[in-house]
């Protein structure tokens, strides 16, 4: 039962290129609420599965069904899981099915959180901030700096499949140490940049000028003497607190801030700086 079903196909360079192409340009097209990236995972490796198991075999149907099950991870790391998976399937064929299913379910969560924090939050935050800062002055160069950075990320996404295929699960352990250090460093830069953004990108000031006797008191100027940019810092602090409340979503927070700002502006307390 085992010998005849152990596949003999070896993946070629062309296979890796095809998987990478499908992953980069197609992995999430089928995203849906029921099984999220399930069909995308199958689509990415379908030609290789056909070569490993052979068209029309019951093994192929079984493994295709395995790969359309629920799957969701970072689309910046998905081919690491694919690489580890194919190394197993190529060697063990359908006997490796349970191993593969377990490995996919076991790794997708941790890669999702690392991938989201680095590639969906930190990099866009840092480069988005630089791009937005230049854009505010009418300069589009920052946008292109960001695009160049994303192209570097694409190269990284392209390379990882081969590395994962060669090194298997051992890669995850060697990588996790490096990634932890990298994530820590990246969050430091992220926090630093948020501080910088608070100080530059919230252009609002006190407009309220109560009269002391007959002399109007310039509140903004008095505050500038204590600490410039105090008002933006207070606003961010306030919203940070607001977001920590129960039942608060980012969309609700945006609308609350919008309405409160319009009211305070109408009352003459704050104005665009």
């Amino acid at each position: 039962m085992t010998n005849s079903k152990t596949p003999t196909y070896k993946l070629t360079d062309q296979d890796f290129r095809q998987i990478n192409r499908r992953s980069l340009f197609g992995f999430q097209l089928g995203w849906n609420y029921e099984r999220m990236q399930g069909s995308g995972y199958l689509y990415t490796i379908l030609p290789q599965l056909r070569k490993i198991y052979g068209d029309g075999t019951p093994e192929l149907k079984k493994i295709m069904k395995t790969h359309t099950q629920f799957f969701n991870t970072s689309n910046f790391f998905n081919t690491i899981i694919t690489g580890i998976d194919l190394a197993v399937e190529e060697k063990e064929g359908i006997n490796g099915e349970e191993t593969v299913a377990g490995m996919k379910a076991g790794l997708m969560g941790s890669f999702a959180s690392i991938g989201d924090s680095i590639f969906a939050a930190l990099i866009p935050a840092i480069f988005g901030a630089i791009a937005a800062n230049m854009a505010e002055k009418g300069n589009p160069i920052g946008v292109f700096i960001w695009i160049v950075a994303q192209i570097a990320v694409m190269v990284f996404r392209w390379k990882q499949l081969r590395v994962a295929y060669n090194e298997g699960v051992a890669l995850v352990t060697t990588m996790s140490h490096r990634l932890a250090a990298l994530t820590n460093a990246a969050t430091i830069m992220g926090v630093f940049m948020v501080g910088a953004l608070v100080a530059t990108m919230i252009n609002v000031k006190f407009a309220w000028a109560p009269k002391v006797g007959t002399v109007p008191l310039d509140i903004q100027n008095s505050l500038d003497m204590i600490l410039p940019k105090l008002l933006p810092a207070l606003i961010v602090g306030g919203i940070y607190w607001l977001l920590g409340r129960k039942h608060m979503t980012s969309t609700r927070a945006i609308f609350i801030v919008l309405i409160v700002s319009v009211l305070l502006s109408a009352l003459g307390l704050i104005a665009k700086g």
Partner: protein
Amino acid sequence: MIAWWQIALLTLYAGYQILDELQIYSAMSSPVFAGFVTGLVMGDMKAGLLIGAAMQLTVLGVGTFGGASRIDANSGTILATAFSISSGMKPAAAVAAIAVPVDSIMIQTDILARSTNTFFAHKIDKMVDQYNYKGIERYFIAGALPWALSRMIPVGLALAFGGGFVTNLAKILNTSWKWLGDGLATAGAVLPAVGFAILLHYLPVKKHFAYLILGFTFTMLFSTVFGNVQLLGTTLAGVAKGFTTSFNGLSMLAIALIGFAFAAIAYQQTTSGSAGGGANAGSGSSAKATDEKGEIEDDEL
């Protein structure tokens, strides 16, 4: 008025940007790029960049976490930019008056797209049963349609039919309801604070609060100095004809480099701290980790 070719180009971009974001993630699906493109198409790049920048900062911390639907800042930026330029609404007011409401309405079409794709997932199951490989691929690629249309239809319709309404709105906001127009502009200036606060919730602020203070203080001091020098320069140029030097504003890239240096120091400290016994520690932890993994797969290793 917005010309038909402008509507066509912007509608196409609205479809492209969501596919870009799902796939290659090239930053051409960012609000700031959306503003740039729309500004170019509409003939006022600066207004586009301004609106794009404001929306970029507002959604700075809102990543794609676990596939949850989130505010669609790109479609909002396209509409706000196009209408701001065509109707003469102030860019800052357009952010609050158009981009934010549009963004939140578009969450619904996003949910619709993700639900529609469930239908294709079931079609793929059928194709798997029939060994129909072309069918699997066809129904998978078809998933691009709900995604793209969920952006193209609302953006195209709004651009084609929303112009009159927005022009009237812009007129009112600039005249009889000026208090509201100013208020919306102020709100547009405050909104980036939401993006920063969301990002802070996501980052380990308590652990790294010192860097938050550093980033804020460095930038606050430098931007005050640079701002005052610029003000001095323009004032002087207005008074003295011979004064032609112009001063640039603070470079955010320079500030980012300072932040990068702090991050690099921290990275070196963590890696050298444990990599002193580098190889040993590495192999030790990997042995431990394979033990943990052992419950999932013991035959492969």
